[in-house]
């Protein structure tokens, strides 16, 4: 196990270590994170990274293969553009969590603020609490699971992503609609919650939302929606 105390080491030292072959199957513990930016960005190998405190912007961004846990809150852009692996936030995550994520799994045990999963392109996101306004704006693929409530304009202008919400939705964005929960969806929801370590969440009240596909097909009758 390698310790990176960010009092004595720079974030760059840490990130460079995560970019070396030697990071494969290695464990890293990061202390004195104190809201510093860009912690564990661009990790490329199957490493385990534990951030023991609150992280600043972009923590776990562009992650490939690594399993990153933040024992605290994460600032804006947590797991931005994640490719694979997992990023788990034990506390709350700030704005645009997992934005543009292409793969992997992002778990937030607390709440996220606005624009969670904006432009998600294949990442799966599981939020134990609630999410803020304009979440999953222009989401393209992947799943967003929210055990609590969703803020205003969920899934505005989304493409093929799926949204499962256990609580209330303040409002749906343009072209986002509620869709029926079939067996396939119940199974997928269950699988995602189990993968996130939240298998005991009662899924009976969850609803599914997604794109009505009226915007991106450029039907002239919908010109007023643009």
């Amino acid at each position: 196990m390698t310790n990176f105390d960010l009092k004595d080491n720079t974030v760059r030292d840490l990130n460079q270590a995560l970019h070396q072959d030697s990071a494969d199957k290695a464990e890293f513990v990061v202390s004195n994170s104190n809201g510093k930016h860009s912690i564990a960005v661009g990790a490329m190998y199957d490493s385990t990274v534990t951030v023991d405190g609150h992280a600043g912007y972009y923590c776990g961004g562009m992650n490939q293969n690594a399993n990153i846990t933040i024992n605290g809150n994460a600032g804006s852009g947590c797991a931005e553009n994640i490719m694979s692996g997992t990023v788990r936030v034990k506390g709350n995550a700030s704005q645009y969590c997992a934005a543009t994520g292409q793969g992997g799994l992002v778990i937030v045990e607390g709440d996220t603020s606005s624009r969670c999963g904006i432009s998600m392109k294949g990442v799966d996101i599981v939020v134990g609490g609630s999410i803020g306004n304009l979440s999953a704006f222009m989401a393209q693929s992947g799943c967003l699971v929210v055990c609590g409530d969703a803020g205003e304009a969920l899934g505005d202008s989304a493409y093929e992503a799926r949204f499962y919400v256990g609580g209330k939705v303040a409002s749906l964005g343009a072209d986002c609609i509620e869709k029926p929960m079939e067996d396939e969806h119940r199974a997928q929801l269950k699988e995602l919650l189990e993968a996130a370590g939240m298998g005991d969440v009662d899924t009976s009240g969850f609803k599914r939302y997604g794109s009505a596909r009226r915007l991106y097909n450029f039907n002239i009758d919908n010109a007023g929606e643009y």
Partner: protein
Amino acid sequence: MCGIVGLFIKNPEMEKDLGKHLSGMLIEMSERGPDSAGVAIYHDPVPAGSAKLTVLAPDEDYSWHELHDGLKHVFGDDAEVIHHRDQAVIKVAASPALAQNWIQESHPELRVNGAGEVIEIFKDKGSPADFIDNFGLEDYSGTHALGHTRMATESAITTEHSHPFSTGLDLCLVHNGSLSNHNRLRQELRKKGISFETDNDSEVAAGYLAWRMQEGDSLDEALQNGLKDLDGFYTFAVGTDDGFAVVVDPIGCKPAVMAETDDWAAMASEFRAIATLPGVENARIWEPVPTRIYSWHRG
């Protein structure tokens, strides 16, 4: 981009260290605002019926002695002038309005940056670290304070363009964001008698709040009306004689983090500024919900 910080002391034993903690928070916000820095510190109130003004002179060689003699002559021998570089705190036994009028008429070269009984506003171009050194910020005690580090995006880098902006007696505003309707609003507010000294958008927000409160709004009402009339992205922190309030615009894309312990309450653009405060590991930490007004007041 800019950085804003606010610190409200709940435990009186911490009041002596207000400046030290405020400085630590400002340093963490240096990257968000390397162009200029400013603070509003609430401390050492003058007796009721007296006034405390903070003024900005054209340069550091200003004849503060002459000003002091003039003040003593008009307002009595206990008038005080405490200067730091090109700025000074003036204390006189008269109402703030009377003192402010006299300064504006007798010393038009001075700009009144703050007025009231408690508030002191200092600001300067340059890095937050230099600002802290030049104004001896670490030595200040007090009950609460706001700070700002500026990265200029829409108007010039001068001391006058720096935050905080006064919005009335013992009131001030710091702002992170940008307003898109400030030119039109400035014209309208000028017609209502609000004066502006720069083309800065945040000064318009300050002027707007000052106007609303002159019209009888409470601070909360003025901020509520601001949500309708101010178009743009913003996190505002407004200092008052006994606390401060924070509000984020409806879209909520400018950052703000708040934290509270039994000893203090704080807000900052980023958590790393709050991470410098004692006991932060046990603090309750959250982000403000857009349009909700959060405020702390002395009980």
